[in-house]
């Protein structure tokens, strides 16, 4: 389905995750973050670019992995995205929701 963010129509799945990363922009991220009641600071952007980099490398994301990345601690990760660090941050970053833990 399509959704309007920052004045452009982007493709998202039924949970609101972008299905085409090429449609992501900082403005789109700002709008998605607004929906999640998060206002983006430089720390958020640092994390977002780390997440996108890992996604490009096709490495599986987990809260522990982010905590060990040196970008943010787990504590800070929760402070940045209190309602669900991995769920919300990946959505804002325009990458797929990490597959469920087994």
């Amino acid at each position: 389905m399509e959704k309007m963010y920052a004045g452009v129509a982007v493709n998202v799945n039924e949970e609101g995750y972008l299905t085409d990363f090429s449609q992501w922009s900082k403005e789109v991220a700002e709008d998605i973050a607004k929906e999640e009641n998060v206002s983006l600071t430089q720390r958020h952007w640092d994390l977002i670019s780390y997440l996108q980099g890992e996604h490009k490398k096709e490495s599986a994301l987990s809260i522990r992995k982010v905590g060990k990345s040196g970008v943010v601690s787990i504590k800070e990760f929760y402070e940045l995205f209190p309602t669900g660090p991995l769920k919300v941050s990946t959505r804002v970053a325009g990458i797929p929701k990490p597959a469920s833990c087994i």
Partner: protein
Amino acid sequence: MKDLLILGAGTAGTMMANHLKKELPDGWKISIVDQQETHYYQPGYLFLPFDIYKPSQIKKPIEKFIPKGVTLIKQKIEKINKDENTVLLKNGKSISYDILIIATGTDIAPQEIEGMLGDHWHKSVFDFYTFEGAKNLRNKLRKWKGGDLIVHITEMPIKCPVAPLEFAFLADAYFEQKGMRDKVNIKYVTPLSGAFTKPTATKELTHLLTKKNIEIIPDFAIEHVDGENKKIVDYGGKEVSYDLLVTIPTNMGDDLMERSGFGDEMNYVPTNKATLQTTVKENIFAIGDATNVPASKAGSVAHFEAEILTGNILRYISGQPLKEEFDGHANCFIETGHGKALLIDFNYTHEPVTGTFPFAGIGPLNLLKETHTNHWGKLAFRWIYWNLLITGKHIPFVTATMSESGKNYKDVVEEETV
């Protein structure tokens, strides 16, 4: 003479030794390394705290299951030198190999959470993923007077992801039988958004939790244990108080991986999920809980993997391409108390649903439904484990890859994540 070396003589490693002893061509020698004396029937750890099994029913000497002609080396493993194709042991001896199979499993790592270990460990904070933990918890439960019982998962993935649910169900039945259920408040605290990792099963299991008066507290990411004030605190500041905390600590692979310079952030071995060859090196394979494949960490998974890995090792030896055959097949009983159990059967792509198993329309086992037959299946499994499973015998009618026959795939629920 060529050498095949297996690291770890637990469920997966022992199965591989038995399979390969029968299948390897002449000219191959098999050795297996493990520092332990005892092979534990790990599903029994769930029953030990409730006095359903005695310790003697779940432990046997490791040697008993290593086939004749396979060399068992009882030593701690220091390091894998993948470039030299050697494994260094604690006693300083180095063993060379042509093919290596890593089957070192996973273990609890309670030290990962601040405050989990300490004076209260195995006094008011328990695990049941070790023999010691399960036995100490049994002794505690025998004389416990009641209060808030918190069943808690630290972080995923964990070995046997249904075990904490089973523990909560069995605790409900145990205290009811003792005539003190009204004195015990059972809460199930999980980092997941629901009762289980798979949506349709989550729906059924949530219903069961509610029916048994077990409160579920989801999305709880523990930051530390406050042992003195008996509460767990999450990163968001949420707190849950306990009188008795039964936790599944962080699970991690063997730190041998870290010492050897590979392994992911949880010390699991990067492994091709369909062939079970590692991405570390082409002559290194991995099986069971030690791998990073996105399947459940469970004995049934190791059993199915063993049949497929045996085929691929033979292919590797004869220079044929490996078969991308493993589909993530898992088959787990879920004890729900009062002599009943559920059964789930699933793989990488197909979540557990209702239906019959192993025969479509006949069963005799019922998928995702509480029945007495399923419970007898689980109890019979201890015999199957000691007599068929770890000795590498095929379990009748149960295939290594999952069968879709007899399963109801309509009305499945959307996948949930943390």
